[in-house]
């Protein structure tokens, strides 16, 4: 593509984004989509037209996995490399595609047509092995599909003309409860919230019974907040902070001149093994947006964002269509449902391949067009979030539940679940079971019950809440899903007795090393050291020495990392060492320390250059 064309393309994108540098991530994504990469010439235009230093643009472009500052081919194939994809034999399929297209893994083909590599979990664990082609999801890969894809790429068929069934994503809802069973008419929840009037005690307990821009007589926000408090809803992203308290804190946060409150829906579902938000955004998009609007009404926000992970790019157009319809129906925009001053709108920002952006402050950085580095906290987003404004960040499922609470009331919702975990929870079940998919249960359900329902047999272990979660052995299957026992963001990966739990942990450690943002020393270097140590064991070079080193490293990561990524990077190893020690001991082949690298192979280059192959040209492992 010529320089002039690039410049015109970039300029057109910039015009659409009002040359607003806080939208840099979105701008770069659109350039990438249109140009197949982000060329130095594209950055030239950005530098001039945005009037920001080149360093800032390159800093952001270099951070996200799905941005390429070097050509990566017209077809960029990424194999999801979660452990569930591995168990479905994704690697042989990738090798088959590489062989078929004459391209080396991670490299670009000589003709510049295609590159093939791996990526972190793409959220299709119930229908893997999955890939992304130019960021569009393709599921249920098998040899026939791989061969067909190779043919399509060779023939340079545009992605839009590929067989639509390749891109079909199943919802696989296996068990539903209140959240999935209740189908709201758009606007119902909001209308009910508007109609609520606070009783006297609520009005007295609220520091403000109105919000900026609304008539002083409007009592609904305080009443809605009261319903949220009574629902005892806790955040569904995993941390479990009380949603009502978060909304109240944002509502009470003072605004500086020119500021407004912000509602952010965290749809950066990056935790390996999690895909329930994908299903909610497919099936219940209205309810997600309605929950956000209820939140906006309650806390007094005028602007909302849905931060959608880049892997779910295919959902962007349908979601934008829902937003457009809601605007037409008066459910978004100015004077929503005819209430003067009730103004709120939502826009969708896409991520670009960075798990760490699921951390709320990193997500906000990304929304502001920056590298997704978690902020120093405090201050927290509820007071100093998006562009330093009070910001509520909640998970997709939290907003769906909030819409339900708006409609049916906090007391109703609070009757379900357990004392510390009200309501229901969506589980993304994958791995060794007959019926992977979405299961909704009231909190308190046992792991054993879920295993029975999904048709899991000979189960050795369950990894709950993804790579950063907890690994349960069979003796713990009587435990309960809930904040008082096993909190979860929703992932539920099943491993039968044929699986090597060491390899499961190793897959997760590779994930963390790949996704570390690189900001702090312990996580940046420590996750790579941990990865190298796990690889050393995997290569049969392990001894008790390495075991001790892994345990020490875990402690350092836990104590000194900047954010949850580094803190939880240890979890998979700690859990599996404790519960599946024999899986590790199989890899401790040596009594004494052995080097991580193969000494004899380290002589291969010299052998080749000298043509020697005598005894002295080799080093044995032991002497």
């Amino acid at each position, binding site marked *: 593509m010529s320089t002039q064309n690039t410049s015109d393309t970039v300029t057109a994108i910039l015009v659409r984004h009002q040359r607003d540098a806080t939208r840099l991530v979105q701008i770069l994504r659109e350039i990438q989509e249109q140009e197949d990469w982000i060329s130095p010439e594209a950055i030239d235009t950005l530098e001039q037209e945005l009037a920001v230093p080149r360093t800032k643009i390159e800093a952001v*472009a*270099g951070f996200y996995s799905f941005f390429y500052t070097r050509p990566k081919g017209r077809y960029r194939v990424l194999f999801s490399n979660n452990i569930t994809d591995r168990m479905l034999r994704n690697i042989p399929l990738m090798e088959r595609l590489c062989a078929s297209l004459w391209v080396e893994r991670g490299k670009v083909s000589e003709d510049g047509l295609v590159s093939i590599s791996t990526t972190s979990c793409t959220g299709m664990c119930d229908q893997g092995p999955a890939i992304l082609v130019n960021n569009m999801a393709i599921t249920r890969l098998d040899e026939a599909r791989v061969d067909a894809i190779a043919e399509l790429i060779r023939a340079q068929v545009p992605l839009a003309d590929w067989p639509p069934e390749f891109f079909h994503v199943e919802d696989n809802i296996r068990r539903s409860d209140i959240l999935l069973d209740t189908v709201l008419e758009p606007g119902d929840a909001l209308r009910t919230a508007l109609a609520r009037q606070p009783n006297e005690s609520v009005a007295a307990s609220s520091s403000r019974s109105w919000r900026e821009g609304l008539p002083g007589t409007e009592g609904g926000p305080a009443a809605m907040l009261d319903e949220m408090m009574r629902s005892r809803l806790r955040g569904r992203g995993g941390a479990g902070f009380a949603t009502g308290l978060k909304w109240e804190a944002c509502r009470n946060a003072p605004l500086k001149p020119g500021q407004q409150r912000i509602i952010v829906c965290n749809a950066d579902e990056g935790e390996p093994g999690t895909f329930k938000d994908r299903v909610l955004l497919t099936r219940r998009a209205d309810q997600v947006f309605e929950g956000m609007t209820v939140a906006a009404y309650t806390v007094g926000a005028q602007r909302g964002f849905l931060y959608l992970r880049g892997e779910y790019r295919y959902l962007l157009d349908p979601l934008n269509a829902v937003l457009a319809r809601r605007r037409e129906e008066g459910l978004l925009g100015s004077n929503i449902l005819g209430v003067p001053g009730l103004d709120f709108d939502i826009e969708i920002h896409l991520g670009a391949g960075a798990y760490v952006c699921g951390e709320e402050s990193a997500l906000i950085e990304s929304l502001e067009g920056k590298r997704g580095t978690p902020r120093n906290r405090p201050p927290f987003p509820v007071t100093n979030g998006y562009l330093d404004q009070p910001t509520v960040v909640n998970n997709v499922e939290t907003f769906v539940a909030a819409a339900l609470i708006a409609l049916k009331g906090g007391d109703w919702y609070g009757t379900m679940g357990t004392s510390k975990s009200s309501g229901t929870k969506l589980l993304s079940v994958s791995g060794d079971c007959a019926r992977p998919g979405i299961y909704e249960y009231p909190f308190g359900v046992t792991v054993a019950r879920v295993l029975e329902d999904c048709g899991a047999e000979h189960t050795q272990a369950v990894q709950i809440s993804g790579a950063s979660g907890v690994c349960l052995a069979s003796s713990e299957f009587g435990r309960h899903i809930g904040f008082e026992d096993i909190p979860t963001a929703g992932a539920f990966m099943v491993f039968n007795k044929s699986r090597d739990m060491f390899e499961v942990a190793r897959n997760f450690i590779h994930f963390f090393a790949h996704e570390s943002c690189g900001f702090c*020393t*312990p996580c*940046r270097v420590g996750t790579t050291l941990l990865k190298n140590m796990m690889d050393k064991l995997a290569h049969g070079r392990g001894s008790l020495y390495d075991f001790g080193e892994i345990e020490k490293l875990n402690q350092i990561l836990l*104590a000194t990392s900047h954010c949850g990524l580094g803190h939880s990077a240890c979890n998979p190893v700690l859990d599996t060492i404790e519960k599946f020690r024999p899986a590790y001991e199989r890899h401790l082949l040596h009594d004494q320390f052995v080097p991580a690298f193969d000494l004899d192979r380290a002589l291969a280059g010299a052998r080749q250059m000298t043509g020697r192959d005598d005894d002295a040209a080799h080093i044995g492992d032991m002497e």
Partner: protein
Amino acid sequence: MSEGNFTLDGEDIPFQEGQTIMQAAMAAGKYIPHLCYHPEFKPHGSCKLCTVRVNGRATASCTQRAASGAVVESNTHAINDERRALLQMLFVEGNHFCPSCEKSGNCQLQATAYELGMMSPHYDHFFPNRPVDASHPEYLLDFNRCILCSLCIRASRDVDGKNVFALSGRGIKTRLIVNAKSGRLADTNFSEADKAAHVCPVGVILKKRKGFAQPIGGRTFDLNPISATPHPTIKEG
């Protein structure tokens, strides 16, 4: 302005509202090991060398506000073990060959490692390939020694108003970049007068033709340990 006290390793440390633990400790003449912190710049909190325990909870003291009555532990065996491990991580991540480095003796990474008694890098070295940038007539950039502390970035952005430096890449591939399409320092507006030319705690940003000007024995940290002079004005030439 309100004031208060916290204890650092059992000693009372006064602080003023808004001060971080690091700031209050330094004002009281107490040394907490650190690399990315510099009193003239906004705290960054990335190197994590300054991690302390506040009421038992680990946190970076350069970003943590001091709170009245807090019990802060810093100079303990366990915490110094963690710090030593962080230093070892920095040493194996880059290529730190002190004997041939112009910054040796004036290097905060090296001096902090001395302070904490780091006898070896312990971990396996990454031996990354990081070409140097010798394009600039007056300055050399040796990325082999970069510890990603971002002090040059902050200095260039916040003091010089130039944005000569930034971090790009992610994770272990994070790297220092300069503000030029060519990627070369010579093609930026970097100059010797910049604050950014004088803040590198290690030997990345070096004045050319000035190496090894001070004899061994007379360099900053030959004379005093870093705990006694955490931020000496390093004299050039």
